[in-house]
């Protein structure tokens, strides 16, 4: 069985999906099911005190899916740590809850702040969290996060919500070459082929939100990405042929009719 072992959990699905920006909860639930994801991200926000009888997000997350609370919207290590502490209490989960650490630098690029991310990661690891940090596609930053005790590293393929796909496969290959923890591409995936491209390089999993929730048909895109993630993983395990500049015939060159 080809399983992903991550922070004390075992997953057969290598597609992690977000729960943000769906037009309604029923569509979200259908997309989550179509993706076959076994872990979903959620955000921590103030309860709207005015909204009465508002439907709860958790009610619409299929049973058995592992929750991965994020620190989206945090621009400092302190805010990210504070958010994780709230998430831990909200979940009433295990002793070592998984968190997606995300400390951003500015609202326009939404690129990670490497310094604050590392600072928050160290603090959270010391408090027993299993930290999955969103990071730049920088092999040095990834190594430092791994050294800090993170359970995985999650380099971006491209900026959050950009749908640009994997912009720097070479940087990702360097991260993969050195990492001893799972490498998860978080952010940048735009369509199914992006999933396959990343998985073929040997990443352990993908985290996708906008490319599914923002698609014309989110449920169909969720299924497309499930299949592409599986296809990419299989291709990686199968081992691709080396790239060559010139042609290599598939059929025998001897015995061709009319030959000498």
């Amino acid at each position: 069985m080809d399983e992903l072992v991550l922070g004390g959990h075992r997953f057969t699905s290598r597609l992690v999906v977000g729960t943000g920006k769906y037009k309604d909860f029923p569509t979200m639930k259908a997309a989550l099911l179509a993706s076959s994801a076994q872990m979903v991200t959620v955000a921590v926000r103030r309860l709207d005190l005015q909204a009465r009888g508002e439907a709860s997000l958790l009610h619409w997350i299929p049973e058995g899916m592992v929750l991965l609370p994020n620190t989206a919207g945090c621009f400092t290590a302190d805010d990210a740590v504070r958010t994780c502490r709230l998430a831990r209490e909200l979940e009433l989960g295990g002793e070592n809850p998984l968190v997606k650490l995300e400390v951003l630098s500015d609202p326009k690029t939404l690129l990670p702040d490497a310094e604050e991310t590392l600072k928050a990661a160290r603090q959270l690891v010391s408090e027993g969290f299993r930290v999955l940090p969103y990071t730049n596609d920088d092999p040095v930053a990834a190594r430092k996060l791994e050294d800090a005790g993170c359970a995985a590293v999650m380099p971006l393929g491209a900026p959050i919500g950009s749908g640009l796909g994997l912009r720097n496969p070479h940087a990702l290959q360097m991260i993969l070459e050195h990492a001893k923890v799972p490498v998860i591409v978080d952010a940048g995936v735009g369509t199914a082929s992006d999933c396959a491209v990343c998985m073929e390089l040997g990443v352990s999993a993908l985290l996708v939100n906008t490319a599914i929730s923002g698609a014309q048909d989110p449920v169909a895109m969720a299924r497309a990405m499930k299949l592409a993630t599986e296809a990419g993983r299989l291709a990686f395990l199968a081992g691709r042929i080396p790239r060559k500049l010139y042609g290599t015939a598939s059929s025998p060159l001897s015995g061709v009719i009319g030959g000498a």
Partner: protein
Amino acid sequence: MAGRALDRAVRAAYHRRMRATVNGDAMDLPDGLTISALLEHLRIRPERVTVERNGAVIRKARHAEERLSSGDVVEIVTFVGGG
């Protein structure tokens, strides 16, 4: 007499008010409200939320004991959709 004085004191305490900030809104609340009572006052189901007071998480097990003081800054949070 002592009984009546005590009764008055209890009533005065009950009607004493305080100002606290809850999710960014300044609120006028009964003094010494517990976290459990605050959630009840706001008609919030406790299982859905986590409460933080002055930057520190209040564990659910402590909701019935922890009391608010004037000037406290309270955050009541929940999970929402996110990526």
